[in-house]
């Protein structure tokens, strides 16, 4: 049975990855799972400079989902390269760095630094973070700006580059096509949906930033639709995500057109969920007599 899939030239031992911002850097989950079994991990959003992120509170629970407004808290690309990288580079899985910035120059510089790291085979260009004042989602909600940043980073980043798309747009397929046109090896979707929560008793917004990003099963039907739309518009591989909680959800995303999938919020509820999803996909393939997981991709009848 073959579980391996490819994005650009890069092979993944299976289609199951972890989503940026929901899996730390990996070590956080070592007590619960064997990291080396994963198809890939995408580490926390990384920026050129250290960021403290937004003020607390940054989280709200919502029906079948959650809001977050972390705001890209991270120690900056130098600490990543000099410290964190060395703690995780031994993992036998594809480690992607999720790269973010407030300006195109920041994206470029960060990607250049990551390009030097031997054991990082790819980046995920985050042009869809709804939780930062500058940059982030602003890049991902119009074709010209998405093209500009993708094109600029492509010039300096030589390995696998996936662009992470924002769902907060009228036409996500159009943006996917645009970044495909300037050299993205793949697109990943969806990032969180811009949303908010209010506490009726205190009359205050729950998050310090008022709005935040919605993730979890609540958004799965929207994510699935967007993956399906993008699959009809582009030829490059899609990494699908948004509310995947189990193998059945993962298979639905593959049938809609995803080559690989990412698991985000579900890691909080069950830190061993990724392994269960890998096992569940195998089980499904056995039951349905499917030898190659690639046969699932876009296989919706």
């Amino acid at each position, binding site marked *: 049975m073959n579980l391996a899939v490819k994005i650009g030239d890069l092979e993944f031992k299976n289609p199951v990855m972890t989503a940026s911002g*929901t899996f*730390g850097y990996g070590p956080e*989950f070592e007590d619960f799972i064997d990291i080396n079994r994963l198809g890939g991990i995408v580490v926390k959003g990384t920026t050129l400079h250290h960021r403290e*992120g937004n003020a607390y509170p940054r989280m709200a629970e919502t029906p079948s989902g959650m809001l977050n407004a972390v705001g890209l808290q991270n120690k900056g690309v130098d600490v990543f390269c000099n410290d964190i990288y060395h703690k995780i580079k031994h993992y036998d899985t594809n480690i992607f760095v999720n790269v973010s910035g407030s300006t195109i120059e920041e994206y470029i510089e960060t990607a250049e630094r990551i390009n030097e790291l031997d054991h990082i085979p790819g980046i995920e260009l985050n042009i869809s973070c709804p939780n930062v004042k500058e940059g982030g989602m602003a890049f991902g909600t119009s074709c010209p700006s998405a093209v500009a940043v993708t094109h600029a980073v492509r010039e300096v980043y030589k390995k696998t580059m996936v662009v992470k798309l924002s769902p907060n747009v009228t036409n996500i397929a159009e943006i996917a096509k645009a970044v495909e046109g300037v050299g993205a090896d793949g697109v990943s979707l969806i990032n969180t949906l811009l949303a908010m929560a209010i506490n009726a008793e205190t009359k205050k917004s729950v998050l310090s930033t008022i709005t935040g990003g919605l993730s979890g099963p609540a958004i799965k039907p929207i994510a699935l639709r967007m993956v399906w739309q993008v699959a009809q518009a582009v030829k490059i591989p899609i990494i699908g995500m948004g509310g995947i909680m189990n193998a059945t959800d993962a298979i639905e995303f593959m049938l809609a057109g995803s080559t690989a999938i990412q698991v985000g919020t579900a*890691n*909080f509820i069950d830190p061993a969920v990724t392994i269960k999803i890998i096992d569940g996909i195998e089980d499904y393939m056995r039951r349905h007599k499917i030898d190659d997981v690639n046969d699932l991709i876009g296989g919706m009848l």
Partner: protein
Amino acid sequence: MTSNTELSKKYVELLKVINNRTVNKDYYILEVECSHDISNILPGQFVELLVEDTRNAFLRRPISIYDVHPERNTMDLLIQIVGEGTRLLSKLKKGDYVDVMYPLGKSFSIIDSGKKALLVGGGVGVAPLLYLAKKLQKNNVEVHILLGGRGNDNIIETSNFKKYGKIYVSTEDASIGEKGFVTQHSIMQESDFDMIYSCGPDPMMRAVAKIASQNNINCEVSLENMMACGIGACLCCVTPTTSGHQCVCTDGPVFNTEVLEWNK
């Protein structure tokens, strides 16, 4: 003084409910049986409970470890019903299973033998203090415990706490103990404690910390920030400290108040 810096190995598994004891209409104590050795669990650590069969309580619920019984490998969790999650968990019955991630977070420091400690708990904030009192007493620390609450109904488990130290009580409505906030209790004026440990509502802990600092007493508090993951992966539970945003779930929940930037 010992404090736990290394995190112990964490587990996620279905634990059998050995008992679910109703304390009063708002509080209950779940006793769950663990399959791993729990004798090294430290006071102040917590667990994350999954509320099964529902998405009304989507994320796990963080709950302090109230007591540990190494002889039967069980832990007690003291839970207050405040919303959907804690209400649904209250329905667990002896023999049921509950999905638990444990043990999480860093512990209170245990001060040296012969020293004198004041433990200040407000409402369900008393939860992490019982096991702390037990460990302090074992270390021959002189333990004083101040329990505060709005009224009689919020002062719970005093007979249990009594085993490990001298008890003081204050209620806002004067239904039991001295009248007023815990910080107005006479014991708070005494300045010869070597450490004040506190857990309870945020404003209470801030007030306790202020008095401690005025009296030059070391002070540790256990924070209850909103958590999504409980293991340092999501960065949702942060609190501002002298070294920037730190995660309450892994850098805490226990913090020395000196490092907290409570005015930020």
